[in-house]
């Protein structure tokens, strides 16, 4: 066990720092919107020309999109999780634009690279990486949540078009997106998973209506998307007819990795400690209350465990070992920790939890109230907690699969 980086990697870190010093100034950093903010999840983070120019330079140096070939606009580097970690750490420290957050770069691109045609890759990958084409995910439906394979939105091939009818729901960022990658039912005679195809749908297609869906925070980051005889060119299918389920599997795996990261949880926890120091409760700073202190350390233990587990997973990946159970538990471990941190923050806020997010009288503008609600959102998104428990029990512990129809 050695937590020092070797000379080769220390030199690499210096190289990244020199690059950042040259290409991303303190003024640039001050203008950059917070990449870790909640809005980033909803795909609302804007792109400006300065950020795009910087990303192009970083891609040319092989710092971003390392898994994407250069011919499609990526950095194309041999896999090296340690270098990827150093880049992420240094870019975060400099507040420089990293890879675009959102479902296009993180989910669609790996899927296209694995299953797309040459024409699809050339058309979409480069612009998606730079945020010029923005994507939403059309998976969930009112009747198909955890049981996604029961989805009923239909696409029928008529001439050179798929004619799509049906409804998607919980579609994050649909109003800001140019395109949707969607799962639709194309083979009516085939059972569940075998009847599904993966389609790329231009959101400007006539017959598509997007209706905002207001979530419990009061904002509307989700939408419902209705399809009424929307015609999609036949070549916009990814993979073969009826193979959409297999095509989409790589995508969900990527989303779980996206939601499982622990640096956001660290920020929330550090914010909670600051809050507990700043707020008075019953005649003393909240942090002097032994109950609060005990709970903080209890949560910090789980946070540290997740962080060191991140080092462990990184090491396994660098050694070419399969993470197995160690990787499967991370979404549940990190989202349930976020949920408990938010709960303690609400207790520390105390009676001022009566004030709504955005109310100037509320501590930290009520951001802990918003975080309290969002901690439920991420527990559900990308495979709800009970689905994670099934995955851990079945694939990780080898227990029998649930009876399914």
């Amino acid at each position, binding site marked *: 066990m050695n937590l020092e980086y070797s000379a080769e990697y220390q030199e690499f870190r210096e190289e990244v720092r020199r690059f950042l010093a040259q290409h991303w100034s303190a003024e640039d950093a001050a203008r950059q919107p917070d990449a870790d903010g909640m809005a980033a999840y909803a795909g609302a983070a804007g792109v400006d020309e300065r950020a795009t120019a910087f990303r192009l330079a970083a891609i040319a140096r092989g710092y971003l999109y390392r898994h994407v070939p250069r011919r499609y606009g990526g950095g194309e580097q041999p896999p090296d999780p340690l270098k990827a970690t150093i880049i992420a750490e240094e870019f975060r420290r400099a507040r420089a634009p990293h890879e675009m957050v959102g479902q296009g770069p993180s989910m669609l691109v790996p899927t296209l690279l694995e299953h797309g045609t040459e024409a699809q890759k050339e058309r979409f990958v480069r612009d998606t990486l730079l945020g010029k084409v923005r994507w939403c995910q059309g998976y969930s439906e009112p009747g198909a949540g955890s049981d996604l394979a029961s989805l009923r939105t239909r696409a029928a091939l008529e001439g050179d078009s798929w004619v799509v009818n049906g409804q998607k729901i919980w579609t994050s960022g649909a109003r800001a997106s140019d395109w949707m990658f969607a799962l639709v039912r194309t083979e009516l005679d085939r059972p569940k998973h075998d009847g599904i195809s993966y389609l790329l749908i231009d959101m400007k297609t006539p017959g598509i209506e997007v209706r905002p869906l207001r979530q419990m925070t009061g904002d509307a980051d989700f939408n419902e998307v209705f399809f009424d005889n929307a015609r999609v060119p036949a070549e916009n299918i990814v993979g073969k007819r009826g193979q959409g389920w297999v095509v989409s599997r790589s995508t969900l795996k990527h989303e779980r990795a996206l939601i499982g990261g622990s640096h956001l949880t660290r920020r929330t926890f550090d914010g909670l400690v600051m809050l507990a120091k700043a707020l008075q409760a019953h005649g003393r700073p909240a942090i002097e209350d032994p109950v609060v202190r005990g709970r903080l350390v209890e949560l910090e233990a789980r946070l540290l465990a997740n962080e060191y587990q991140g080092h*462990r997973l990184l090491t396994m990946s660098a050694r070419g070992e399969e993470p197995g159970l160690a990787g499967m538990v991370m979404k549940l471990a990190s989202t349930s920790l976020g949920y408990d941190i938010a709960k303690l923050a609400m207790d520390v806020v105390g009676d001022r939890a009566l004030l709504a997010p955005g109310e100037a009288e509320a501590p930290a503008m009520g951001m802990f109230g918003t975080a309290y609600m969002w901690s439920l959102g991420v527990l559900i998104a990308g495979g709800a907690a009970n689905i994670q428990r099934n995955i851990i029990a079945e694939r990780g512990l080898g227990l029998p699969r649930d009876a399914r129809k």
Partner: protein
Amino acid sequence: MDFGLSPDQVLLKDTIRRWLEAECPTARVRAVMESESGHDPRLWEGLAELGVPGLQVPAAHGGSGLELLDAALVAEELGWGCTPGPFLACALATAALNASGHAEAAARWLPAIARGRAIVTLALGEEGGEWDAARVATRAHGGALGGRKPLVPYAAVADAILVAAHDDDGPGLWLVERGARGLAVTPLDGTDMTRRVAAVELDGAPATKIAAGRAAIDRARDAGLVLLAADAYGGARRCLDMTVKYALTREQFGQPIGAFQAVKHQLADLAADLEPALALWWYAAHAHDHVRERAERHAAIAKAHLTDLYDRTTRVTTELHGGIGFTWEYDLHLWFRRAVFDRAFLGEAAYHRQRAADLAGW
């Protein structure tokens, strides 16, 4: 940057695991725990031949001079096996002797500990749940100790006892040998029958001062906290493994109980808590030797977290077994009881969390 075990460490773990499976199955665990002293000299000799008591003894004194992480990996395996014996007692004493800087005591006792020829233990805790070296009541005057240590591991079979006490200069560490005048050791019935405790009365017992100040005592306590965390992890993993196997074979309502979601989800929650917790005690052990400024706080956090998890794991897995899990005949309660020891010894979780909050400067 490599946060993983070395090939030597994996080999060490595997060797201990295979040896325990062959030499100390639960039938032998039960025989030892039902014996009068709770100590099986032949079992301890076998572990000594594998180098277990000498892991942290410097090479100059006949040990292998390894780090706390190596000892913790062995503690994990002993926890997995619910192995009875004075491992923890000797590890605490070794850490204290190493940190004492007392060359004579080290030269006299460490080689004997490493060979399994001597058992040495540490007497720290006192009445009132006191585990802080600054607040113990035992006093040293003119080379003699007076006081009471109610919960000393393996004191009844110890050849020497290291005693945390105070003299006019403040806290320090003294060594008392077996059979000393004024030393009375009373074996006690313990909840965990695989790690025995005894009450130690000191009434003018002649003792050698081997360290001034609290540093050596704290260092030994921190090593002990990490070893308890590792023992807890190993034991909890064993309970989880046993219960998964049971859930796959026990049938009710015409199917294995492991097919019911209620059972699956309880087990998945335990796995989701235990998996990352491994990395927490790994880091705490690593920090003990390599990141000294974080060592004390991480040891406290790891002990509190892992022993709480151990307790929850033994309770949930016993519940999942149903009636059989509540019997004496079934082995699960061996770990249930061991979890009680890991939680209580050196101070409970809440105490160490308050210490961790203090150490953070909150």
